[in-house]
């Protein structure tokens, strides 16, 4: 059986980085950017390409918060829950998002449209509360701005 497309993609990306094991994080970022997550079958493929053990690659994928082992929802809303945003009332906004989406922070809405995740600091600590929708930064978040973001995400 031919290897799945995802495995080929992962091997091609590793080759671009010269199959250097020290570039594993960069490689995984690229795999995730292209496939949307790090599929299980890419782990042994990358281990083979970089001359690492599967355990080592698995360890890296699972250690870092950035890497997903399953696809995210159609949109990803990350809300900062660190101290500076806490001081500006981010927790109430997180609760609002949770109730609008009907899920707890850290999961995807039932219709698969929005993944709501915490993030610990976007470095926008004087213009909080802060959030990020699909990579776009939003500062001075208010309930109205949050509702607009959720609407944009189709929730």
């Amino acid at each position, binding site marked *: 059986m031919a290897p799945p497309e995802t495995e080929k993609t992962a091997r091609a990306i590793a080759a671009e980085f010269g199959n*250097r*094991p*020290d*570039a*594993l*994080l*960069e490689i*995984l*970022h690229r795999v995730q950017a292209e496939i949307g997550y790090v599929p299980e079958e890419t782990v042994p493929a990358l281990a083979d390409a*970089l001359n690492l053990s599967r355990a*080592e690659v698995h*360890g*890296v994928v699972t*250690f*870092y*918060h*950035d*890497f997903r082992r399953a696809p995210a929802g159609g949109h990803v809303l990350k809300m900062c829950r*660190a*101290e*500076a*945003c*806490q*001081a*500006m009332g981010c927790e109430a906004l997180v609760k609002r998002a949770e109730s609008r989406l009907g899920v707890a922070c850290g999961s995807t809405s039932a219709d698969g449209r929005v993944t709501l995740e915490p*993030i*610990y*600091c*976007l*470095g*926008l*600590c*004087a*213009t*909080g509360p*802060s959030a990020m929708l699909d*990579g776009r*930064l*939003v*500062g*001075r978040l208010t309930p109205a701005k949050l509702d607009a973001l959720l609407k944009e995400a189709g929730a």
Partner: protein
Amino acid sequence: MTIPFFSKAKRGEEQPHGKLRIFVPKDAAAVACGADAVAAAIARSASQTGVPVEIVRTGSRGLLWLEPLVELEMGGIRHGFGPIEPETVGNLLNAGLLRGDLKALSAHPQSLGPVDKIDYLARQTRLTFARCGVIDPLSLDAYRALGGYKGLEKALSLTPAGVIEEVSKSGLRGRGGAGFPTGIKWKTVHDTSAEQKYIVCNADEGDSGTFADRMLMEGDPFVLIEGMTIAGLAVGATKGFIYVRSEYSHAIVALNAAIGIARKAGLLGIDVAGSRKVFDIEVRTGAGAYVCGEETALLDSLEGKRGIVRAKPPLPAHKGLFGRPTVINNVLSLGAVPFIMAEGAKTYFDFGLGRSRGTMPIQLAGNIKRGGLFETAFGVTLGQLVDDIGGGTASGRPVKAVQVGGPLGAYFPRALFDTPFDYEAFAARDGLIGHAGVVVFDDTADMAKQARFAFEFCAIESCGKCTPCRIGSTRGVETVDKIMAGDASEDNLAVVKDLCNTMKFGSLCALGGFTPYPVMSALTHFPEDFRRPTQRLQAAE
């Protein structure tokens, strides 16, 4: 305070003839508040009215409550307007921004007058951040016009040992939080013989309430590149890495672009500035692990592994990246080096007090009226920073607590507002200045919740190598939960204190070792928040 560097910094680039120059930041914080849309609206209006306008996208001045801060240059003076959000930019355009009618514009409600005269900026001593927010971050000419690469020029005229002596004499200490003398670190690497050495820049600025590294990388990336180049030449390293957290995508873009420009200009590569010395830099992206801000975890992460803390010794200066001698410095430490080399160690040393010399880019954040970056000599008190400079809370309510130094920093009550910003003074009051983030909380804050969060954050981010951090943090969350439910409070308080003691003295690195700071300070200064009425815990049926 006037020193030669400043008068140069005010001059800016020459204005092209007949063209209006308008400055709009592209700093991530400004962009988060709509700066891109503001710049687009100005450009659209200019093309509709046929007014020739040059829109320069700069870094941020650090007056973050005024972002997006739009500046109009007239007669060599930059007049500020802010905050100008996408919803209000139309007003500013109607008021005559593109006509350059200063008289009419000065009546605009968001008019701030000449930016250099704004009190918040005028009171600062901008050494590291002299150019940030002033120039186009990717204009090498603008960087050079304001003193850029003079430090490298000076460094190339000295021996490596001479450069290190200069850095040592400046009194510069690690700005990442540990405060270790930078010169000693460099000397150790210099004195260790090896075929390959490395410079690693720690740009994993994970502390909540801090954004100085981000602002500098986005707003003046060449200063970091120059600082790293000087470090490389001084210790004999030919390769540098900047490890940037993945949350800082704008900074990564800016750094990669600036490195490309520096390479093309012959300032990086096989013949740095015609010296026949080799130095080049690569940017690496983190992946959302707070512990990778700890230097040894960062090194493991740079090697493509899990970010697990290493036991010391060996020190990174002896066995660092790939087992080679490595200088690992924070963005702000390396960013201070070009000024030190260009203007002399003594000029830098003359700022500050005691063993804290030079300036510190302090970040005012959280619930604060005038949040932003305030670079100043060591010695300013916490009270001055919060009340006078920061203007108190944004909510208008009384300040309850101030957390200094990120998630691992202590909560200070108003009673300790006379503490001067100085490594030793904060340590003497069971706190730390860390990376100089100051997060303000108003009287609605619940300090038991904050103590719980400190443990919880440690549990989420622990690398898992040492037991006090890995287990202690989770037991801490559970115990604070019991206290918050009013369950056998006194016994549980004793458990929290005991856990903190174990974590402080038994952890391998600062994550577990410093988590007790926020917990114990909350407990010590705000004991009333921990005395809760007994709640019946929900029975698990």
